């Protein structure tokens, strides 16, 4: 019954059951007709048999009666066969190729009686020896009936055809409407908030559904626009005075008369820079989650990109007493994505590993493929993150107590997760035993 979940499954089952039921009822009607005709023919030959054998006639008398019967209209189509005590035919007009048993039986073409394809036979043993056999045609459908049957079958067939075509048309309509809804929903997920379901006519169930759906999207769009303008305003209105503050402090730090307090001013400049970096990361996450960057996706060789990034950071890791290594992928791993964002994703993961491990740690960047996806892992052999804290580490501002004193704004991993999601992939934290493994799955080119 699992197949009934799909529209295709339902219509296929429906068409199958309909044709089955139609065929079954045809067969049942035919069988009922055959048995009704048989009963009628049986009744007729039994009556004729009684008539011929009435009053214990001699064989000669029976032969005479048969001859008479053959000339009358009512019984002219009945076949007779009289056999004597030694089973030799002595009168009648038919001789079946196969012996007929005593009592009622059905004859087919194997009896080789000209003009008879199906018949009923009644053979009775005579009191003075010998047997009398009567045979009558029991074919329920004659030549005219055959035509009628053909017409009937054509009628049935066309009904089945019309119903199947109807199911197909209905299915196609439903499918087209579902596809339109789905296409719109996917465009919205990808960040095109202006996408709407095409409405051919506002009447009818589908038109009404599309119109309602579009009104809902309009409403969501209004809310999103409101929210975006608020956050843009907040970002603008907060960043501008911050920018001024930063500019003034930086200028002050250079002034010769600031010499006695320069150290404090430089520290204040650093603080304001940290706040601004936090803003930049927040806005970047908002931008990535907005999904608009999918529009700029290009085909990227992840193997080359990763090798380049690792090469560009190896010296930095070495400078901090850590080792950054990458296993060469060997072959290109092609995905659809945003190279700048994927660069930021990997840089964040490597920086995260460098910030939270002691010197002497080895950070490994690995790239592998699985059916339909690329797997990027950044593993270290440092202290790792306990299982219960991993979820929090991925949450915005979810910095763990142990890392509060470390540099950074705590948005590196959440931004990485948002970038993976933009690519319809995922980012999870695992135990590298020992250490932390960050695993990123990205769909292969043409998949997402």
């Amino acid at each position: 019954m699992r197949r009934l979940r799909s529209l295709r499954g339902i219509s296929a089952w429906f068409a199958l059951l309909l044709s089955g039921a139609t065929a079954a009822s045809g067969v049942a009607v035919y069988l009922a007709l055959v048995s009704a005709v048989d009963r009628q023919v049986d009744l007729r030959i039994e009556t004729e048999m009684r008539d011929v054998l009435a009053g214990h006639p001699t064989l000669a008398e029976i032969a005479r009666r048969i001859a008479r019967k053959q000339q009358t209209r009512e019984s002219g189509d009945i076949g007779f066969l009289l056999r004597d005590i030694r089973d030799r035919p002595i009168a009648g007009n038919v001789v079946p190729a196969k012996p007929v048993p005593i009592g009622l039986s059905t004859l087919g073409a194997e009896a080789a009686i000209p003009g008879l394809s199906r018949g009923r036979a009644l053979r009775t043993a005579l009191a003075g020896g010998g047997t009398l056999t009567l045979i009558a045609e029991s074919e329920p459908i004659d030549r005219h009936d055959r035509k009628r049957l053909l017409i009937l079958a054509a009628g049935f067939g066309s009904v089945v055809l019309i119903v199947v075509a109807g199911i197909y048309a209905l299915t196609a309509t439903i499918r087209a409407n579902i596809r339109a809804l789905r296409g719109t929903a996917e465009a919205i997920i990808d960040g095109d908030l202006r996408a709407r379901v095409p409405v051919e006519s506002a009447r009818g169930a589908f038109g009404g559904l599309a119109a309602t759906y579009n009104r809902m999207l309009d409403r969501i769009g209004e809310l999103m626009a409101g929210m975006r303008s608020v956050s843009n305003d907040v970002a603008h209105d907060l960043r501008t005075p911050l920018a001024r503050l930063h500019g003034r402090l930086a200028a002050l730090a250079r002034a010769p008369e600031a010499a006695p307090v320069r150290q404090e001013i430089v520290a204040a400049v650093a603080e304001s820079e940290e706040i601004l970096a936090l803003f930049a990361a927040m806005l970047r996450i908002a931008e990535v989650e907005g999904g608009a960057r999918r529009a700029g996706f290009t085909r990227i060789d992840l193997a080359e990109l990763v090798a380049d990034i690792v090469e560009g950071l190896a010296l930095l890791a070495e400078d901090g007493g850590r080792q950054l290594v990458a296993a060469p992928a060997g072959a290109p791993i092609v995905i659809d994505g945003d190279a700048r964002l994927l660069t930021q994703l990997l840089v964040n993961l490597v920086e995260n590993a460098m910030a939270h491990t002691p010197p002497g740690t080895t950070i490994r960047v690995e790239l592998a493929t699985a059916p339909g996806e690329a797997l990027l892992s950044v593993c270290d052999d440092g202290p790792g993150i306990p299982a219960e804290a991993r979820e929090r580490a991925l949450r915005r501002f979810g910095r763990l107590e142990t890392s509060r004193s470390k540099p950074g704004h705590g948005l590196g991993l959440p931004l990485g997760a948002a970038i993976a999601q933009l690519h319809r992939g995922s980012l999870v934290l695992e135990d590298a035993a020992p250490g932390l493994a960050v695993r990123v799955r990205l769909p292969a080119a043409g998949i997402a």
Partner: protein
Amino acid sequence: MRTPASPSPDADDTAIALRALVVEDDAELSALLARQLGGLGYEVQAVGDGRTAITALADTRFDVVLLDRMLPVIDGIDVLQRMRGEGVETPVILLTALGMTAERVEGLEAGADDYIVKPFEIEELHARIRAVLRRRAAPATDNATLTAGDVTVSVLRHRVTRAGKVIPLQKTELRLLAELVREAGNVLTRPMLLERVWGYDFVPTANVVDVHILKLRQRLDMPGLPDPIVTVRGVGYMFCA
């Protein structure tokens, strides 16, 4: 060394001051910017909205326009498009508070020459203005071999020599040196280097540029020869031939 075309982007070594138009609606930031640029030898005119900017551009010839992305009445992008539509080819650097990539792409497509996210150090802006003017004066050629002083960098052949001696370099080190040599005599800021050498459109927490510069200095070090890379405090690095 190539000779810079007129007008010289090097405001320090020329008598002719560069004329800059600042289009910024935040009066305080605008005044700060005008003061700082004035201190660097620019001749600055500041306006507070897009309409006035368009009028000013029609009246006066500027060497560079510093255009705020978000302006009242007429948006920064609209000002830019109108300018370019009217055939005004003055170099434009967009100033933005948000730093979204979509904005940057939009700005560059509308005809901006560069893009800088607020807040920025005045030196960063100065370096970018000079880079934009240099690029306008002499568009970057895809020269396979770059030379400055006794250093020659062949990017395609991955080969660096100093005073005729081959110096083995890692890929990133070579790309960094190539950028410095290409722009020899000019300051390149950390964000500019991160963008050009590493392809980062964000500033990482750790200072990856400084680490590579240090390594590059060690590699280029030769007895009796001076360090060709000059640190410009609080700004960036410069290759001195």
